[in-house]
Structures are given as C-alpha cells and as structure tokens.
C-alpha cells in the first residue's frame, strides 16, 4: 500500500509540473507578457532609442520609457528564458506566493479566494441537482426495466446528453426565467437566499446532463444488482419491492456513480466556464476566461494549476477508493 501511495504521489507531482509547464509555455509563446506589464512601451525599439538613432520626436521621453521597460523586465524576470522563469514561478508557488495579477496588482491568492466560493456553490448545487434527479430516475427506470418508462427515459437521457451546455443554459434561461419567471436570470449576491436562488438555473444547466449520465450508470448497475442472489432472497422473504430497492440494491449499485461523481467534478469545471458567462456569475470560470483574454498570466496559471490539481487529486482519491474497495488492485 505504501509503495502504491508513493507511486501515485510521484505521478501527481509530475503531472502537476507538466501541466503548469505546459500552461506557462503556452502563455509565453502565445502572449506577450511584457505588453501586459508596460503596455504600449513593450513595442518600443529600446536598443535603437538608447543608440539615439530611432526617429522619435521625443527621445527623452522614449528613454525614460525604456527605463521603465527595463525595470519591468527585471521585476518580472522577463529577461530570462522561459524555463528559468518557470522555475522561478514554481519557487514562488512553493513558498505560497501565487504572484499578483498583471491587471490590477491584486494577489492571485486573494482573487481565487474571492471567486472560488461562487464556483464551489455552483458545483455543489449542480451535483445535488444531478444526484437528486438521477437516483429516483435511475431507480424507477431499473425497477421497470425495458418498459415504456424505461425506454422513454433512455431516449430522454440520450437527448439531455446531446444538448450543448450553453444551449441548455439559453433554453432554461428562456423558459424558467423569462417565460415562466420562476428563477432570476442572473447572479444576485444581495442575500444568501437570493444567491442560492439565482444559482438554481446555472446548477440545472450543469447538473441535468450529468443527471442523465448518472441515471444511465445507476440503471445498469441496479439491473445487475437486482439479479444477485441476496436480492432474490429478499424478494423471497416477501419484502416490499421499494424497500428492497432502497435498502438493499441501491447502495451496492452506486459504485459507478461514485466513481464518475469524482471525475465529473473535474469535467464540470470546464462547463462552468460557459455557464458562469451565461448567468454572470463572478466565479473561477469567468475569471479564467477574462484572464486568458487579457493575458493575465499569473491568474491563468494559478487557476489552471488549481483545476489540474483538483483533477489529479480526485483521480488519486478514486484510485485509493478502488484499492480500498478491491485489494487486488493494489496487490501488484
């Protein structure tokens, strides 16, 4: 077990390094960090200006601009090659310094602290929605497997899985907010109740497709479980079918759902990018879109790392869960 744990941990760290290096290189390759720090001055041809040859009407001004540029280069280590800068960044990260946003000089840690709760509320509510929908739906479908309801729900779940989440968001917004006026159309932070209420539509948008996939998993596993001996036994004892379902069959059938529950959280972070845009939620998803669009390197990198960490750690935990459940997994 210890060796297994160590191997997993090594992998986790290696993946984190690789993911952040990928993000770091991509940002440096695709964007211009200097521009974000000094703006237009990044375009100055400072060597020519220092040499006095550039045809700029205000050479003095240009020289002082070039000093600013040089200063910024030094401050942000922009004069170093990308791998060195990456290592410096990792060094800061390890010591708990996430850097400050290029955009507004706020510490990245603070930005994440401000934005993360909204996203977490959204993700938690989405999971509640999906489980709340999927469990009864899956149970009923399995109970009457291959009957009309089951066949209908198979089609329905297939349909739900085929709606792009932004399209689902727009449809729900139209129906539940504009047409029937049940839920607010956008994020509200006035009160906790208002906040939760305004998160219902986004949570439905994220949660319903997930509910469809949970339902499919649960239904299959339940049908398998219902054929096991102990269920037959319970049935022979004359227990009511719903009691058998919830007391005996449901728990052993949740295995697949639990597995996917973990990884789907990672996948949902991607979905939250779009959903937070639609409903104007100031969360991590919207923050990273803004940060990418504005080339705010430190914020993008920190969030990428956060998401990758979450993903890798969830995988790690699923691994542990497996090995705890089935010792054969870690036997070798």
């Amino acid at each position: 077990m210890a060796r297994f744990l160590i191997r997993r941990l090594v992998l986790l760290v290696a993946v984190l390094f690789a993911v952040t290096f990928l993000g770091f290189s991509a940002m440096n390759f695709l964007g211009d960090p200097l521009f974000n720090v000094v703006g237009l001055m990044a375009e100055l041809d400072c060597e020519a200006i220092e040499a006095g040859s550039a045809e700029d009407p205000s050479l003095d001004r240009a020289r002082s601009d070039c000093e600013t540029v040089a200063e910024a280069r030094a401050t942000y280590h922009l004069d170093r090659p990308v791998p060195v800068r990456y290592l410096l960044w990792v060094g800061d990260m390890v010591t708990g310094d996430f850097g400050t946003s290029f955009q507004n000089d706020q510490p990245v840690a603070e930005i994440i602290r401000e934005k993360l709760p909204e996203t977490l509320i959204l993700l938690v509510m989405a999971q509640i929605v999906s489980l709340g929908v999927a469990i009864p739906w899956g149970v009923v479908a399995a109970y009457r497997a291959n009957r009309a309801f089951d066949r209908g729900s198979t089609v329905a779940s297939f349909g739900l899985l085929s709606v792009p989440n932004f399209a689902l968001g727009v449809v729900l917004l139209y129906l539940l907010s504009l047409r029937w006026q049940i839920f607010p159309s956008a994020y509200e932070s006035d009160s906790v109740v208002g906040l939760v209420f305004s998160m219902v539509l986004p949570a439905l948008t994220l949660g319903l497709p997930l509910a469809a996939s949970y339902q499919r998993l649960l239904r299959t596993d339940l049908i398998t479980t219902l054929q096991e001996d102990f269920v037959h036994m319970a049935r022979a004892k004359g227990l009511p079918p719903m009691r058998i379902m919830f007391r005996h069959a449901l728990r052993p059938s949740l295995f697949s759902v639990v597995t996917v529950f973990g990884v789907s959280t990672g996948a949902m972070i991607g979905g939250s990018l779009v959903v937070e845009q639609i409903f104007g939620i100031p969360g991590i998803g919207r923050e990273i879109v803004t940060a990418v669009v504005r080339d705010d390197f430190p914020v993008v990198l920190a969030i990428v790392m956060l998401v990758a960490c979450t993903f890798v750690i969830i995988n790690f935990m699923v691994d542990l869960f497996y090995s705890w459940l089935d010792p054969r997994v870690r036997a070798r």
Partner: protein
Amino acid sequence: MSTAGTAEPSAQAEPAASPERSDSDVSAADGDRAGGAETGAVSPDVAGEGSPEDEGSLVAPLDATTTVAVQGAGTGVEAPADPLPLAGGTLRVAVDGEADGLNPAANNFAVSAYVMAYPMFDPLAYFDAEGNWIPYLAESFTSNDDATVWRMRLREGVRFHDGTEMTADDVVATISAQLADPVISLVYRNTIEAGDFITKIDDLTVEMRVARPSARFPLALTGQLGMVLPSEWLELAREDPTLNQKPVGQGPFMISSRVQDVATTLVRNPDYWAADRMPVYVDRIEVYPITDMVIAAERLSVGDLDLAITTNAEATLIMRESAGVRTIENLRSDEGFAVINSGRPPFDDIRARQALTFAADRDGYLELIRQGTSPPADTMFHPDLIWHNPDVKQETNMPERAGPLVAAYCADHPENCSAGRINMELHFGGPSVENVRIADLQIDAWEEFFNVTPVEILQDKLINEVVLGNYDVVNWRQFGTIDPDSAALWLECDSIGFISLNFARYCDPARDALMLESRAIDDLDRRVEIWRRIQEMIRDSYTYIFYYHTNWAVGARDGVHRICGQASPDGTELWCNNSGRVLLNGVWLG
C-alpha cells in the same frame, strides 16, 4: 449574456480616459432640477480671483436641445418639485464594467471607475451648468498673460479620510505620480512636460507650467488628474499595489469594502471637509459592475437597483419602458465613428477613403445597432453645442458614388485590389457580440467595393494596434468634448509618431495652427469660427466616418433624487451626467 459584456465599440479600448477628451456634457432637463433649493442656501463665498471669465454657455438655449429626460412609463412627464431631502439609505448603482483599481495615480479610469471615484475624491476643478470650468476642491486658479503658467490656490482645512490635512505637497506628489505613469500621462504628453511641470509655492499654492498657451488649462483637472491623494499614502501604495483597491481621498464618501467584479461599497465620510455647505444624505453607495447592462436594466425595473448607467441601446430601451424608472440621457457625449488610417495603403489615397465613406451604411447602423437611441452624428459636435457647424454633413449611404472612385483607385493601384475591389482590414475589439454585429453590418455595406477582412482583437490590445498604426479601419468612440481644445491631441501633426494619438495619421499644418490659436485665446466668437472651419477640414480629409452621438443613459428609480442639480463647494450649479460620470455626492433617497 454576451461574452465580454455589451461593450461599446471601443469604450474600453480608448487610451487613458482623458478628462479633457470627454469634458462633454450634461442633461439639462432632469426632472430633479428643482433641487437647486438646497444649493441656493449656500452663499458663493469664494468667487475666487481666478474663476473663469464668463464666456457664456457652450450649449444652445435649453429649448433647442435634444437632450431628453424620459419619464418612465406610467409616471407624469413633469416630476413634482423636490420635497425636503431625506437622509439615510443605501444607493445601489450598476455600472457597465469593473475598474482595475481606484487609485487615480496608478489606474487608468474609465466611466465606471469615475462613478466610484468621484464620491471619494473631490476634483480640483469641475464644470458649471454652462460647461465652463470652475474651481472645486481648489479655491482658485490664476494664470499669467499668455496662459502658460497657472497658479492654483488650495482651500484651507481640507482633510483626507485618514484625518491628515491636504497641502500643496500632496498635490505636487499626486500630479507628479500621475504624469510619471506611462498610461495615465499618455494624453498629456503634448501639453505637459513631465519633469518640472508642477512646483510648490507655499503650503496652499502650487504652480504649473504648460508647454503651450492654454487658456482653459483647469479643464485638465476636472477628471483623474484633479484627484488628490495623501503623499504618504502614495508612497505606501507604491510599495503595496493592493492599496489601489482602497484609496484614501477627501470626498464625502470613503471606501468600505471592495470585491472585484462583485461590488464596491462606499460609506459616508463623517468628517467631510465641506459637510457644512454640501450636505450628504445617503449612508452607503454600493456600485455593482454588471457587464451585461440589459440585466442591470431588468434589475432596475424590478427595484433591485436604484441607478444604472449605460450606453447599451437595449438597456436604454428597457429603462425607458419600465414603470417607476426615469432616464436622464445625455446625447452630447462621445461620438461613435470609424477611423481610417491615412498613413498606409490603401487609405493613404483619398479616393479610397471617400469610397469607404460613401459606401458606409450609417442609416442601418442607427436603426439596427443603436435602435433609435442615439442621434446620427455629422461632426464631432452634437448640434446643441455652439461649436457645431450645421453645414457639415456626414456623407454616407451613397454607394453609387463609391463605384467610380474604387475603379479609378484600382486602375492606379492594382496591387491593393483584387477582382476590382480594394483589399482592407477592419479592426474592432472583442470578444463582444455587439461589436461583431456592428462589423457584420459594416462589411455588408462595404463588400461591394472592398474585400474586408475583419480583425477582432482583444479590447486591451486593440489600442496597441491602433496607436502603432497597424490597421486600416477601426471602430472607435471618442471626442465628445464640450470644450474642443483638448481634441487637438487627437488631430494634430505632433501626435503622429511611433506612438500616434492621431490615429488617422493625418497631418494638416493649417488645421494645427487653428487649434493652437483656439487654445490660447478667450474670444468665444473667434473660437467658434475656428472650430467650425476645422469641422469642414475634417470632413474634407475623409478620415472619420461619424456614425452616432453616444447616448449615455442614466436610469434612476423614481425615489432617487437630485442626480442633477448638485452644486460645487462655492454654490455653483454643476454639470450633470457628464458622459455617464454621474456625481452621486448629493443624491438622496425618498
């Protein structure tokens, strides 16, 4: 619902929000105007030897204006006279974007930042109801004969939020810091020398040397440049940029909390230096940045907000239609237009510029994009302004005139044409649903004569391409000047260079001479004559296609009083809705 909000074509892409550039304008006909009662009680004790000569109003008489105060559906057209102001309450305001920070010496302010900053900072100067500058935080301004040296006297007993007294040292430190900032100082580059611009004379007097004669220099101190910080705080903020989110000013409100993209809360300053003559009523101001102003307008209509400030056409329409909401619309703000880069082919040839202008679809733009909320623009001045030249008309929607020009151009420059059409790029900021829509509309009108390649680049980078001249045509929003001297920056030859604030890169020395003359004199008739001539010159250069006058609409719940009708510390009535920069200081809720 859009991805980058409903950003106007270039609202965020303009360089340093220049206090000069948008000195614009006011809605004179707000239903709240009766609120002058309270300000009338204040004696104009300090006339100030340096207060401006009476130049007369820069706007046409009220009855000739198209400025509108639209009452919400269901309310009477005439608002009742103000009842007695009530103290207390929280004013909830929506603005269309978030500010990176609120430090006037470090962050470049857009309109949303001004809405949050004016309650915290009393500007050194401001505008009276006629559009002339008046001293505000400063006691007086005086200049030498050729208006190159300006002396500013400060008021005694002004205290910052941290309790320290404001002195000339703070002013010198703040303005020096602002001019040292590469972005904030950008728009002052031609007029203000950074090095020895400002000097302290005594504890309450400073002297400023302007590079060119400037008869109305204090206009530059009505915005960000006129917001003074404590010098010690400036030092601290330099070390710790997070302080930019919680600046210390001397205005009637202090910052209480601020969460980026969510809300900024201001609370009443209990020790406001001018509390005796400028009463403050509300306890708190909460400012919400809502990128999709349609959402803000909806929330305003149901009473979740008290005030919303926007240029978004659909939000404006919603606010107009909502019961219990009135709008104060200012049509004399920035102009929306396309700039044509005359500095490189194909538009270095006037025939190409003319053809583009003739083929443009301004009618469609006004109907489909602005949806009737903004009037068409013919020049850089709204017809209400005395500068406006009624003889200058924007030539558009006449594609039949474009064809021969394009044919002639392509005969001479086949390298810039393909299939008989001129090749060009159209730059605009994104990602933005509205900007894409605008570009689609423009291209549809132009594509008969031009092969248009749309280039949607990030708002923040658009300015970069534009000042460096790496574009053919770009959608922009600018001018909106009530006093046009500052517009020289965007038009003169000196602004052309490596970094060019003359975006069109069009140089006309005769035009420059006129603008210099205007800046130095006080003779209003001559200045009007000059600027009417300049409008003709701009028209004949075919470097701008004016589409519309921006409509800065302020939507307010009926219970929100005295958005307009506020007064300066000396009791002078102030401009209202200055291109969306609404003063919230004296607002009360009833």
